[in-house]
């Protein structure tokens, strides 16, 4: 092993020597004459020298080359580094030159030095690989080109990138930019970045000014640096020697600490709501079939699974419009799962009314059949459902508080779905009939309501809602044959906790369980938090067997 390591080091050393030689040889003649005696300055004199060294360089050497190319401030560098980042940079042609190719299969290439397009045999092209460290270096190096972009948003992003790895060169560029910058947001960002750099200054006054500039910031770098100033080392001296600077830092830290704990509470609450919304979403269809109709439908999870697979199929049908596919999938999933629900009710459940145990067994069998059907049609592997751009990413409220868009949309979507469902049950003729049948079937029948039709429609409605839940879940979890199973227990849990037959109970119960779970999670870990929630639920049901909001009156007796 030791022998191998030495060998590796030796080869690396040799490569570096090789690169240096390549740099010296490939430079243009006057540069070579200048550079030859001064071997201690390996920086390539120009772009063509750097490019010549690139294909054979190992990762650490590539990183050096990227930084040096960035410091050349040559406009052609942008295309080269951009192509390297995207994986479009190749070594090839007859002489192994560096070439940019968007379409390596066809061998259509552009020479980054001259900009001339040509065609080379595709086999001769080898892609120049990058790794994480290089990607980071590339983004930092590319940011300087966006620093003078007319779009303020791009400038802000560029400043942000450059601050990820600050050195003397980038600080110089930022100081120049600061003088010309018009946008207040970009100015603020640069000022914060420069102040962070100033914390290292040897002049106590400069440091004090920097601490004051940074006082309102929630940036974690600022927090780390200020905490480091307050830390005592082994010999009792503080990280920061000047008393005034320490006092200012202490004041800043206290403010930051207060704000951080406040925002983390808000964040826990939001996470809880988001998990609660998922629970409500999974349970709300069940609140109708189980809660209102009293049917124990073990295939409820599989109806959600059908909705998720509908999303997948819709995406396959409209691959060009992933963004819109979700909106199309919502009615499609409602329709597919709703129809399946009507078929289940007409085919199985209606023969078993009043026999809950047999209903449970029959629908459980059905859930297995549906899972196997999906395995046979779509294969046992999970299906990739793409996330549209408008659902990806997160809303950053400030440096410490952010919520991802998919969670945010699910909170809103669940609440909207809940309101629609409430309106359907309270305001429409169907809703009236559903309530009538569930309260007193014989009386409703006597009033001329077609109870069988109402049963089928109610079950279809609950199933359709499960389908819509499936569309939402396809954005959060795996679309596979087991999707339904993982939510069925949670769904029953929420409905029973909230109170059977009560939509508000489901809504509040689901959110309460979500928040309790998320409050516990940081202390106990995810596994224990789930156990605690279940234990709490068992105890709660012991005390109040009818849930949070028990039905009252005659309906409760039936």
């Amino acid at each position: 092993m030791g022998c191998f390591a030495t060998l590796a080091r030796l080869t690396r050393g040799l490569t570096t020597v090789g690169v240096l030689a390549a740099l010296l040889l490939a430079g243009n003649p006057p540069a070579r004459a200048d550079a030859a005696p001064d071997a201690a300055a390996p920086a390539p004199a120009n772009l063509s020298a750097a490019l010549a060294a690139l294909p054979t360089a190992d990762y650490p050497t590539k990183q050096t080359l990227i930084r040096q190319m960035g410091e050349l401030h040559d406009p052609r560098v942008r295309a080269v580094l951009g192509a390297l980042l995207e994986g479009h940079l190749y070594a090839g042609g007859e002489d192994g030159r560096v070439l940019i190719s968007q379409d390596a299969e066809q061998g259509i290439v552009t020479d980054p030095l001259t900009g001339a397009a040509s065609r080379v045999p595709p086999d001769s092209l080898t892609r120049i690989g990058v790794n994480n460290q290089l990607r980071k270096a590339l983004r930092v190096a590319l940011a300087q080109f966006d620093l003078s972009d007319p779009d303020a948003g791009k400038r802000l992003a560029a400043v942000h990138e450059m601050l990820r790895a600050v050195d003397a060169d980038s600080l110089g560029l930022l100081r120049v930019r600061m003088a010309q910058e018009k946008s207040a947001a970009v100015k603020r960002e640069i000022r914060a970045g420069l102040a962070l750099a100033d914390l290292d200054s040897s002049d106590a006054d400069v440091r004090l000014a920097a601490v004051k500039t940074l006082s309102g910031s929630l940036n974690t770098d600022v927090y780390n640096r200020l905490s480091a100033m307050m830390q005592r080392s082994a010999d009792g001296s503080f990280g920061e020697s000047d008393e005034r600077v320490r006092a200012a830092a202490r004041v800043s830290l206290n403010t930051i600490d207060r704000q951080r704990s406040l925002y983390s509470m808000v964040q826990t609450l939001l996470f809880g709501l988001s998990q609660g919304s998922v629970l409500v979403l999974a349970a709300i269809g069940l609140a109708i079939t189980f809660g209102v109709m009293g049917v124990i439908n073990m295939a409820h999870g599989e109806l959600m699974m059908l909705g998720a697979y509908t999303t997948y199929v819709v995406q396959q049908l409209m691959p060009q419009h992933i963004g819109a596919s979700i909106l199309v999938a919502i009615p499609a999933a409602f329709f597919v799962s709703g129809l399946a629900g009507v078929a289940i009710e007409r085919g199985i459940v209606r023969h078993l009314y009043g026999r809950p145990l047999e209903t449970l067994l029959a629908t459980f069998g059905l859930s297995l059949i549906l899972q196997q059907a999906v395995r046979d049609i779509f294969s046992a592997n999970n299906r990739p459902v793409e996330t549209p751009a408008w659902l990806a990413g997160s809303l950053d409220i400030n440096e410490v508080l952010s919520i991802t868009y998919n969670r945010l949309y699910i909170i809103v979507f669940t609440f909207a779905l809940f309101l629609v469902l409430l309106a359907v049950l309270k305001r429409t003729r169907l809703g009236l009939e559903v309530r009538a049948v569930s309260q007193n079937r014989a009386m409703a029948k006597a009033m001329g309501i077609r109870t069988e039709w109402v049963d089928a429609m109610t079950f279809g409605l609950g199933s359709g809602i499960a389908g819509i839940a499936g569309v939402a879940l396809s954005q959060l979890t795996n679309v596979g044959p087991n999707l339904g199973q993982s939510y069925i227990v949670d769904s029953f849990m929420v409905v029973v906790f909230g109170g059977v037959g009560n939509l508000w109970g489901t809504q509040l119960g689901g959110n309460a369980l979500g928040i309790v779970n998320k409050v516990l999670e940081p202390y106990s870990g995810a596994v224990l938090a789930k156990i605690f929630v279940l234990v709490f639920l068992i105890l709660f049901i012991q005390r109040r067997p009818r849930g949070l909001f028990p039905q009252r009156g005659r309906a409760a007796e039936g």
Partner: protein
Amino acid sequence: MKMRKLFEWAVPATLIVASSLASAADTIKVGVLHSLSGTMAISETTLKDTVLMMIDEQNKKGGLLGKKLEAVVVDPASNWPLFAEKAAELLEKDKVAVVFGCWTSVSRKSVLPVFEKDNGLLFYPVQYEGEESSKNVIYTGAAPNQQAIPAVEYLMKDVGVKRWVLEGTDYVYPRTTNKILEAFLLQKGVKPEDIMINYTPFGFSDWTSEVTKIKAFGSAGKKTAVVSTINGDANVPFYKELGNQKISAEDIPVVAFSVGEEELSGLDAKPLVGHLAAWNYFMSIDTPANKSWIATWHTFTKNPKRTFNDPMEATVIGFSLWVKAVQKANSTDPEKVIAALPGLEVANLTGGIAKVLPNHHITKPVYIGEVRADGQFDVVWKTPGTVPGEAWSHYLPADKDIVADWVTLKCGNYNTATKVCSGQNYK
């Protein structure tokens, strides 16, 4: 589709039953013990196909010792006790010469007593937590020192990671691996406050708070990496959440031990680009042997898009080793084959040599790959040579004196300090 598959199966199965009655002595039976239904079917079905392909290839070369090979496929249905029953059926009723099988550690632990009682031979092709060496098992997957330890060393030396999140699914493999990794990191001088260990249940999907915790842990000003032993399905929402919370591989890389080509083929790999995986084989490695195997595999499965992955390579290596051992022993008797195995060498698919060691593990190269947008991996680092598998991790204080040696010591758990052999089927 399923009907056709059933039909394809039913016909040879009846033929096999009919022919085995007439000419039982003319074939060598090879048992295949992989789940073809249930949760593990996703991963294990391809291994069954790999063994069938190997048998097919060997029969084209004229079989073994002048006899044709014959597959006996059983389905333990991802049900751990059923694994033991099916193993007993293969060994006692079908009298197979060798078994290729198991994926999860719990299934291997379940069949172990059966193989030791009936003195059978099992080739186990999956990376596992170590701490085991049986006389009747050849471990062709990676032990922790052939996957986890090199990956952590890479992050430490080449990436400069100072803070570690060990994130795993809550079961035996992650718990044991993390125990070894924690001991390793502490020995390397990492402070306890720079290590965060976290477990989540199987199939976990609400990763918001977990990822927020990782983000907070990673923003303490030191380079942070996540070592993930998250299993199966839970990975997709985990990586999605990382992407949504804008944690890129450049800031906090995640190195995974259970995510390979097969797993990535089921999801959109674009948000994962740059995240790492440590394996002993990658489909993208450009060697002639690898290319020709992938071509054979595509012809055999009649699907040019089927992926080939690390446990499949381990199955190929295991099968080739068994064939060589049978030829060397000139017998299919497991006792003689087991004795012939240590010291045998076959070429692996990436240009190295797989050698069976006295502890029934093999030598393997270790590769670190970064995920590409097409779901394949770019190798960014590899060990200079192959690494011999260690059954017992010397980073755990309780195990540092334990060795396994089935050639001279004839023991799977031998304490060199007290000179006592305990457990793991010694005689």
